[in-house]
């Protein structure tokens, strides 16, 4: 037993032999595939507001999910009790999906060693409680010191230590330890009765020391505090955004939420197996401008969206989705891949043991192009420049997507001028991506804050892109 097996299975009288036996029992029905997913997590969070530490919480979760697949059918049951009885009960319920009758044999477990994108560490123990509290206070002090118009500061810190074990009838037997930390600063600024909020933060699959690392001569946590204040002050003087169709220049990094919404979801295997995506049946066709090469990459070191293994035990991979505008492939989990005669791409992810895995993104980004970001701005006569976004949404069938700016400016005669209020941008994914006319040489990734929701399941993801220009998009301003 390794450490993860000890943590998940110790005290439960469950061992590898019992897992094998449970999967065997499920194959007494006409089951093509079955898996057992054990998960345990410890999660802490701290929140400072009005200069005091108001909230602290500690949450423990553990359980097992059992899935049986027969053709296109999936049976699923789970329990928050990790015990032989609960495991067999869940297995019996899940295999009820299939008729009785032996279908095959399970494969012998193959313990694989995978390349580690992040380390097996416990972030909760990486900083003393006193120093966690100090971190919150220091951030607040730093934010308030930026500008006297800062009236309120909220700082939140959270850390998760999660272990998983997945055992499947195809011989998969894998464990993973998944640390995740997140720090955020949100401020309210007030001037002449006008108020605005700004927030900034980051995170990674590592421990709390990440926030103290120095980048460009400054510790990350101080940078978050400064960014939050800067964005709030920019919005305080923002003028109304324009309404109508304009050229849009998206900044590098977090605006990659564009790719996540306009392209990413539409390339998830389940929608394409069902033929319900605007990108269905278009492999080999040109679906974006030739300037676009878009990848989903679970292998970036310590990134929020990275996976050593996905939730089906498949190692994280670097997958090219679109190359020079041509659609190359979809993101797959085991179930959808096998129904489409393909292989999993390491994108089978789930929120927890109590949720079914689905094809999901990891870190999705566009590779750098050749344009100087300054030239991209210069090329626009009248349009908007949007370096920060609040989030987005997509209808994968019609391809319509939105995302909402949280920091944006007018571009007038090739110059960035007035800040404009937050506005929603709307477009059709396939059309908008064909209108990408310039791609910058400044690829960067987001700061580690992405959360993706699909069918009610939330998971951490990453996005990124270079500065890029879309010739025309609809801007939901008021002027």
């Amino acid at each position, binding site marked *: 037993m390794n450490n993860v097996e000890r943590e998940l299975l110790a005290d439960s009288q469950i061992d590898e032999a019992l897992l094998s036996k449970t999967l065997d029992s499920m194959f007494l029905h006409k089951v093509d595939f079955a898996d057992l997913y054990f998960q345990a997590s410890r999660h802490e969070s701290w929140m400072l507001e009005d200069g*005091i*530490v*108001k*909230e*602290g*919480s*500690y*949450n*423990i*979760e553990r*359980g097992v999910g059992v899935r049986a697949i027969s053709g*296109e*059918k*999936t*049976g*699923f*049951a*789970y329990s*928050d*009790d990790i015990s032989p009885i609960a495991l067999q009960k*869940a297995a019996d*319920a*899940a295999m009820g*999906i299939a008729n009785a009758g032996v279908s095959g044999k399970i494969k012998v477990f193959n313990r694989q060693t995978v390349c580690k994108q992040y380390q097996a560490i416990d972030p909760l123990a990486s900083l003393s*409680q*006193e120093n966690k509290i100090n971190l919150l206070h220091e951030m607040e002090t730093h934010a308030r010191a930026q500008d006297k118009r800062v*009236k*309120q500061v909220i700082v939140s810190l959270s850390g998760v230590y999660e272990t998983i074990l997945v055992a499947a009838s195809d011989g998969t037997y894998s464990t993973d330890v998944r640390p995740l930390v997140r720090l955020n600063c949100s401020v*309210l600024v007030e001037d002449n009765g006008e*108020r*605005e*909020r700004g927030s900034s933060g980051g995170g990674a699959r590592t421990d709390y020391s990440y926030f103290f690392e120095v980048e460009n001569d400054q510790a990350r946590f101080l940078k978050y505090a400064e960014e939050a204040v800067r964005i709030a002050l920019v919005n305080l003087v923002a003028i109304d955004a324009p*309404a*109508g*169709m304009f050229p849009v220049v998206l900044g590098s990094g977090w605006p990659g939420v564009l790719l996540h919404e306009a392209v990413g979801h539409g390339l998830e295997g389940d929608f394409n197996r*069902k*033929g*319900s995506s605007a990108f269905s049946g278009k492999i080999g066709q040109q679906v974006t401008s030739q300037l676009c090469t878009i990848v989903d990459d679970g292998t970036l070191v310590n990134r929020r969206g990275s996976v050593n293994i996905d939730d089906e035990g498949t190692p994280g991979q670097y997958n090219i989705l679109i190359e020079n505008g041509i659609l190359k492939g979809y993101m797959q989990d085991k179930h959808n891949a096998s129904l489409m005669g393909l292989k999993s791409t390491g994108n089978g992810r789930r929120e927890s043991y*109590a949720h*079914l895995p689905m094809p999901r993104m990891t870190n999705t980004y566009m590779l750098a192009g050749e344009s100087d970001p300054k030239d991209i701005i210069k090329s626009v006569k009248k349009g908007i420049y949007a370096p920060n976004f*609040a989030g*987005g*949404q997509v*209808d994968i*069938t*019609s391809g*319509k997507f*939105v*995302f*909402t700016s949280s920091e944006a400016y007018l571009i007038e005669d090739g110059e960035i001028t007035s800040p404009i209020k*937050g*506005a*929603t941008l*709307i*477009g059709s994914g396939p059309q908008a991506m064909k209108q990408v006319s310039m791609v910058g040489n400044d690829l960067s990734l987001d700061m580690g804050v992405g959360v993706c929701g699909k069918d009610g399941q939330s998971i951490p993801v990453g996005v990124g892109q270079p500065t890029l220009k879309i010739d025309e998009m*609809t*801007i*939901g*301003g*008021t002027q």
Partner: protein
Amino acid sequence: MTESDSIINQLEQVKIRVAQALDVAKSLGADDAEVSMSRQQGLSVDTRLGEVETVEFTNDGALGITVYKNGCKGSASTADLSEKALSQTIQAAVNIAKYTSVDECSGLADKELLAMNPIDLDLFHPKKLSTEQAIEMAKQCEDSAMSFDKRITNSDGATLATFEGFKVYGNSNGQLVGYPSSRHSLSCVMIASEGDDMQRDYAYTVSREFDGLDDAEFIGQQASKEVLSRLNAQKIQTKKVPVMFRADIANTVFGHFISAISGGNLYRKSSFLLDALGKKVFPEFLTINERPHIAKALASSAFDSEGVITQDRTIVANGDLETYLLTSYSARKLGLTTTGHAGGIHNWLVSASGDADGGDFDAMLTKLGTGFLVTELMGQGVNVVNGDYSRGAAGFWVENGKIAFPVSEVTISGNLKDIFKGLVAVGSDIDKRGSIFTGSLLIDSMQVSGN
């Protein structure tokens, strides 16, 4: 399901656990403690293109505890209810309270406001449904959708879900209350295509009582009607026009209002409705009443998540804001008394008087005249600090009271203060599937961005 598994038995056992947890918290040095636990179990079945896609047996629940010690607060939660896990969880909460700060506004709700003997709201109507029955109903729903029109070319499936569960809440002021509830739903998502255009839309029904669900075939047909009506949508010109929010999305407008009058945003000065109490925020004709005790309703509750008794309230009378929505904490921060809104609102009834009582959906379209009927909103473009509103929208262009053509890929924008004041009429086509019962809403003018 055996008798020992029944929800009522589980509820009684959890009450005992909660009482024990409160004792343990005291013995570990907490001055005060509160514990809540909810559990939900059920069956969810998806069918697609006439075949079963997933059968899922759900079983979720967790116990959360908050302790107060010397004015400091600590919280913890666990799904494992064994004695060992419980005491570890409580110890974790007590440990956290050593590091949080003294906050004079925190603490249990005031004792005199607690629901010590809450009334029964008739929310528990479990349905013993076999997997086969559930599959049959989902199939029936999808079949009627698929056969509705030849342009229905694909399906994202139909889902039948039935859940039963309970909530238990206790605190060291001697309150220990709980109630069981049930929830059943049926939904259907269809895909239609014509030429290069492909669209999706859905229909659903939800009820505490299984027999309260709409007919499966009706839901299937509704889903198909909805999606067919969206085919061949166009963008419209960028301009200011009258906008009507159809009843099924009209609740979102009041959702933003809820967030603006919630104590948490008010004491943080993060609302565009600061100091609006007693002032006109909607036109004279609008009244919003809260009725938390409607039998079998989806948002009914005899007490809020702090155990505070809920009561009938007038939220908006003749356009004036009559109350904020407060928890014990936000009330203390604002020097007020809690309104029993920890955890959210409880059944809002929106009504309009006089000419603004706009009649049924068709009458509302006539009132709209020429403008934009919104049936779908996308994205989160709402800034509650200043009221700025900018969201993606789809729906229909209406000319002279008649639907002319479907519209998509546009945004609607404005400021919520103006949108509230610009309300012209409320329809009688009330949607009761959520916590806000409202008909369609007609707004005099909003900016549409399109071509």
